[in-house]
């Protein structure tokens, strides 16, 4: 007996530890969200390219598209273009789409559509970048002005980061004559970036122009220029106008370098307009979608790998142990009497179709009518099987009648009955009537109410969406449940109702 107890304890411990470990691994290592409410933004970006094609020449349009190698991952990318050949190629960390056509004329419209989201895994790719470069050639007054600017910048900075931001600050200082000279009256961000680039090149600090798009819904925009410098570990991003450091999280890097966004051969008046909107999506579905586009295959062996139809069935199935657990607790800890062991769980499943309130009414009505039929059949002295068959048929007819009746009344709810398991109802009626005869009406009522109560509790718990999601996503939780059930198997304390039942002992002791 003792060895059995030890055996059981070990088994319970193993199961619970395994269950917790797997679940923890899923949550912390794989980063699967704990609740369904965790949603991720899904961005839908449209770049509309318009230009006028000249009738004679072949058309070749080249446009940068996001390289998507850092924080974002694309779920879907499409190039919408009639009669144009499309090719995408990578160069210097940029991606470029090339649309080409032998013959085109008039106004042309091409679309580039990208659906993307933040990258799911936290893993960071190793980043490489230049740390040194040669100075740009500069002559005459510019050279003097640049050197004059460099001296205080050097003085006020300690490393690459402070050096760059100090430079940006100086160039943006409208009262600085040296800066004015270098800008030559052009205050556009592009010119400023050029000046900053020049100054930094003198100090051999590498700098790259970065063109970004803001992920903001429904506002027209054009690419925004940022500067970035590599400090040996990571890219440092700077706003060329404010010196602000760090790329805001809503910027999407579109391309880097000095080239224009779009180049059109054989056409003119090229414009690109961006429009974007975002939608939210359940995080796990998103993860499933990105799964195909990334190397994160942790969902491969989860229940999400099943076809959708099967998934829905499993969502119900994985909750059955929860319902059973409810019955276990109600019967062995509380001491509520129910009809049969798992009948309440089956009734709880039936409640899924009918909703709770309506289900209880339906159950009560059909059982009451069935019981009266059963007591009438009792007079006919029939054998058990024929009698059961009659009751079952009666239940079917009754359900059909209720469906028809409620349909005529316009209550669509009544139609859900069709799936209310008739066999369960028949067996319930039969058992209840036997209980009635053997133990009396009071006991039968008690059992019926106990069954309905247990079924309702089980139903309510089995349909909590958070719980369904949790158990479905982390099926290892079921191992913990099994551990608890095993422990219950050797529970020998009192049931709650026994405390009432044996009260007679205590009254006597008090007297």
């Amino acid at each position, binding site marked *: 007996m003792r060895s059995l107890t030890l055996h059981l304890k070990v088994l319970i411990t193993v199961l619970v530890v395994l269950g917790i470990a797997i679940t923890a691994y899923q949550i912390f290592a794989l980063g699967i969200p704990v609740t369904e409410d965790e949603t991720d933004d899904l961005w839908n970006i449209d770049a509309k390219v318009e230009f006028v094609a000249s009738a004679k020449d072949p058309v070749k349009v080249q446009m940068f598209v996001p390289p998507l190698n850092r924080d974002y991952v694309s779920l879907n990318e499409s190039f919408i273009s009639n009669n144009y050949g499309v090719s995408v190629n990578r160069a210097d960390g940029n991606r470029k789409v090339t649309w080409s056509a032998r013959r085109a004329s008039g106004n042309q419209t091409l679309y580039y559509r990208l659906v993307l989201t933040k990258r799911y895994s936290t893993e960071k790719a190793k980043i490489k970048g230049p740390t040194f470069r040669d100075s740009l050639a500069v002559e005459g007054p510019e050279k003097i002005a640049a050197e004059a600017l460099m001296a205080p910048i050097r003085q006020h900075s300690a490393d690459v980061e402070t050096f760059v931001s100090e430079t940006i600050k100086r160039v943006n200082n409208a009262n600085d004559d040296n800066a004015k000279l270098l800008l030559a009256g052009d205050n556009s961000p592009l010119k400023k970036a050029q000046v900053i680039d020049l100054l930094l090149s003198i100090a051999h600090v590498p700098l790259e122009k970065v063109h970004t798009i803001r992920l903001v819904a429904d506002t027209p925009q054009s690419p925004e220029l940022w500067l970035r410098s590599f400090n040996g570990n990571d890219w440092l991003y700077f706003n060329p106008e404010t010196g602000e450091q760090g790329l805001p999280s809503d910027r999407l890097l579109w391309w880097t370098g000095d080239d224009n966004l779009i180049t059109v051969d054989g056409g003119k008046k090229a414009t690109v307009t961006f429009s974007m909107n975002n939608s939210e999506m359940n995080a796990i579905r998103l993860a499933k979608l990105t799964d195909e586009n990334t190397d994160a295959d942790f969902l491969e062996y989860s229940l999400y790998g099943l076809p959708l139809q099967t998934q829905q069935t499993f969502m119900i199935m994985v909750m059955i142990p929860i319902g059973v657990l409810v019955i276990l607790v109600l019967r062995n800890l509380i*001491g509520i009497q129910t009809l049969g062991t798992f009948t309440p769980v089956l009734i709880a499943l039936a409640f899924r179709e009918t909703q709770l309130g309506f289900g209880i009414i339906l159950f009560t009505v059909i059982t009451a009518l069935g019981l009266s039929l059963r007591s009438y059949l009792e007079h006919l002295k029939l054998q058990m099987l024929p009698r059961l068959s009659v009751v079952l048929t009666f239940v079917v007819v009754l359900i059909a009648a209720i469906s028809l009746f409620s349909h005529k009344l316009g209550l669509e709810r009544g139609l859900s009955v069709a799936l209310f398991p008739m066999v369960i109802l028949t067996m319930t009626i039969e058992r209840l009537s036997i209980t009635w005869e053997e133990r009396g009406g009071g006991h039968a009522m008690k059992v019926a109410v106990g069954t309905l109560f247990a079924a309702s509790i089980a139903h309510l718990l089995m349909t909590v969406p958070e719980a369904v999601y949790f158990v479905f996503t982390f099926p290892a939780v079921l191992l913990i449940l099994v551990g608890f059930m095993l422990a219950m198997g*050797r529970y*020998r304390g*009192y049931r709650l109702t026994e405390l009432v039942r*044996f009260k007679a002992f205590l009254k006597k002791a008090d007297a």
Partner: protein
Amino acid sequence: MFGLIKTWKALEARGIMGINRRNADYVLKYNKRHLYPIVDDKIITKERALAAGIHVPEMYGIIETEKQIEKLDEIIGGRSDFVIKPAQGAGGDGILVIADRFEDRYRTVSGKIISHEEIEHQISSILTGLYSLGGHRDRALIEYRVTPDQIFKSISYEGVPDIRIIVLMGYPVMAMLRLPTRQSGGKANLHQGAIGVGVDLATGLTLRGTWLNKIISKHPDTTNAVDGVQLPNWDGFMKLAASCYELCGLGYIGVDMVLDQDKGPLILELNARPGLNIQIANDCGLTQRTHAIEAHLEMLAKEGRSEDAEQRVKVSQGLFGHVHPQ
């Protein structure tokens, strides 16, 4: 909440056994599943008992198929009183007790007149498994009708009072006299409203009783005191109960016996899951007593010997007998 914890503690202190403990520590531990048919089927119990020389009510016949129902008259013969029982019935359901017959009519013990057809339908219901555990096909058993000893006349309402003794590994642990009441319809089952009266294991003197989970000392129908009654042939009952362990091999059983006017103590049936109300009837918890027996068994195992039924009765009477009413 606090009150419940207090109740829990108090019950625990008194050694009251709950259903979970009974199932986990006794029924599951001592009763092997494959032996259940012996106690679940009254016909097998009877055959075993006869083979072991233990007294049971005489069996007149068995009806196994619908066809055999025709033979009912042949089985009954010239007898005017008999009992029809489902072999695998539970809780005394489906039992028909015929007290008298005249021509084609029968009178049940409660005075109801029924026809031959109705008896045949009852047997047919039994055969289809209406009263059997789990609804399996069953057999009907026709046997001797017990006439209760006159001693019970004053403290019983109709029906046959029976004596239930809980036996752990052959050692009687607790005993109870079950008295039918008007409410129980002549049946001796506590959950149907019968009275349970505790019995001192050593002397056979009745203690106070329980009725519907309350402690009582008078029969609600006859208003006679139920305590202080000396049961005759008590040691015979004890020995009978103790020997049932060898009969069925189950370690934790409730033995139901009756005292027949002419034939003395008879075994009615055995129960592999005896109820817990016996504790209220005896105003005493089962756990302490079963622990005492288990300790005794451990000691015997250490000494490498075992005891026969008579010795076991002595041990039990020494351990649990001579309870002084509080």
